[in-house]
C-alpha cells in the first residue's frame, strides 16, 4: 500500500493518548503536556536512549521514542519494583524497560485503528544508545512530537515511508 503522510497526525494523537495511559498504569507517571511539530521537520535529534519500532501495513512508519535519562530511571524503578534485577544487569533492565514501554504503547495504538481492515504489523523494538542527528532525505517525511512528563521528556519521531530506513534509523539508498 502507498504511504500516505496524512496518517501521521492520527498516529501522533494515538501515541499521545496511549503514552498517557501506559505511563500512568505501569509507572504512575503523569503526562504534563506535549508539543507537536508538523511534517516539515528537516532533521531529527535522538537522545541518549532511543527505542525504534516500525508500524507496518497501511501505516508504514518508523517511530523513535527518545528518552531523557531521568524518565528512563523513573520508569526502570517503577517497572522492576516487583521483579528481581540480577546485580550487574541494571543497564540491561533499563533498556528492556524502555523497549517494553514503547512496545506496549505502540501495540495499544493499533486499537485506535480498528477501521483499517489490514493487519498492522509491529516490529520488535530496537534500542540505540548513541545521540544522533538525522537529516531528512528528499523522499522521506519527518515529523516529531515532544511529550513532557513529571519525570522528564520523551521525544517521539516519525519517519515514513518506513522502508527508506533500516531498524536503526540508517537511510537505505
Amino acid at each position: 500500500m502507498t504511504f500516505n503522510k496524512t496518517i501521521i497526525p492520527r498516529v501522533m494523537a494515538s501515541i499521545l493518548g496511549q503514552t498517557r495511559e501506559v505511563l500512568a498504569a505501569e509507572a504512575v507517571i503523569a503526562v504534563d503536556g506535549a508539543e507537536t511539530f508538523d511534517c516539515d521537520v528537516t532533521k531529527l535529534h535522538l537522545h541518549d536512549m532511543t527505542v525504534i519500532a516500525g508500524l507496518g501495513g497501511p501505516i508504514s512508519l518508523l517511530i523513535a521514542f527518545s528518552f531523557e535519562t531521568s524518565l528512563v530511571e523513573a520508569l526502570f524503578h517503577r517497572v522492576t519494583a516487583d521483579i528481581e534485577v540480577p546485580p550487574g544487569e541494571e543497564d540491561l533492565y533499563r533498556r528492556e524497560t524502555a523497549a517494553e514501554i514503547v512496545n506496549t504503547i505502540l501495540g495499544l495504538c493499533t486499537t485506535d485503528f480498528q477501521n483499517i481492515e489490514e493487519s498492522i504489523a509491529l516490529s520488535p523494538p530496537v534500542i540505540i544508545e548513541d545521540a544522533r542527528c538525522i537529516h531528512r532525505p528528499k523522499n522521506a517525511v519527518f515529523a516529531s512530537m515532544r511529550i513532557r512528563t513529571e519525570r522528564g521528556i520523551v521525544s517521539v519521531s516519525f519517519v515514513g515511508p518506513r522502508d527508506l530506513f533500516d531498524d536503526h534509523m540508517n537511510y537505505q539508498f
Partner: protein
Amino acid sequence: MPLKVIIADDSIITVKKLLVLMEGLGHQVVATASTGREAIEAYRQHRPDLMTMDISMPDMDGMEATSAIVAEFPEARIVMVTSHGQERMVIDSLDAGAKGYVLKPVRIEKLSDMIAKVMERST
C-alpha cells in the same frame, strides 16, 4: 490444579512479570522462550498444559509459531499475551489456533480469568 506453563516473549521484563504472576496463581513455569522458533522447541520438549505467546518476536513471530505448534499438537492451549490490540490481529491469532488473548499490561485477575476459561473449554 497447578499447570505446567511455558512463557514465550522476547522481553525479559514481561517474562519475569508473567513468571511472578503464574507462580502467584500456583502454576509451574517449566520453560521460557524468546523467539518463535525457541517456543516451538520448548513446546516439543515440555508438552505444557498452557503456553503464553507474544506476537512480535524476532526470527519467527508468535502467530507463525502458534500455527506451527497447533499443526503438530492440535490440543495445544496457547494464549496470546500482547499489547497488540487491533481487532484484525485478534482474529488472526484465533485463526492461527490461539485459545485466548490477553492485552498488556497484564494483571493477575485478567490472566487468571483467561486461564480458567481456556481450561474450562478444553475439558
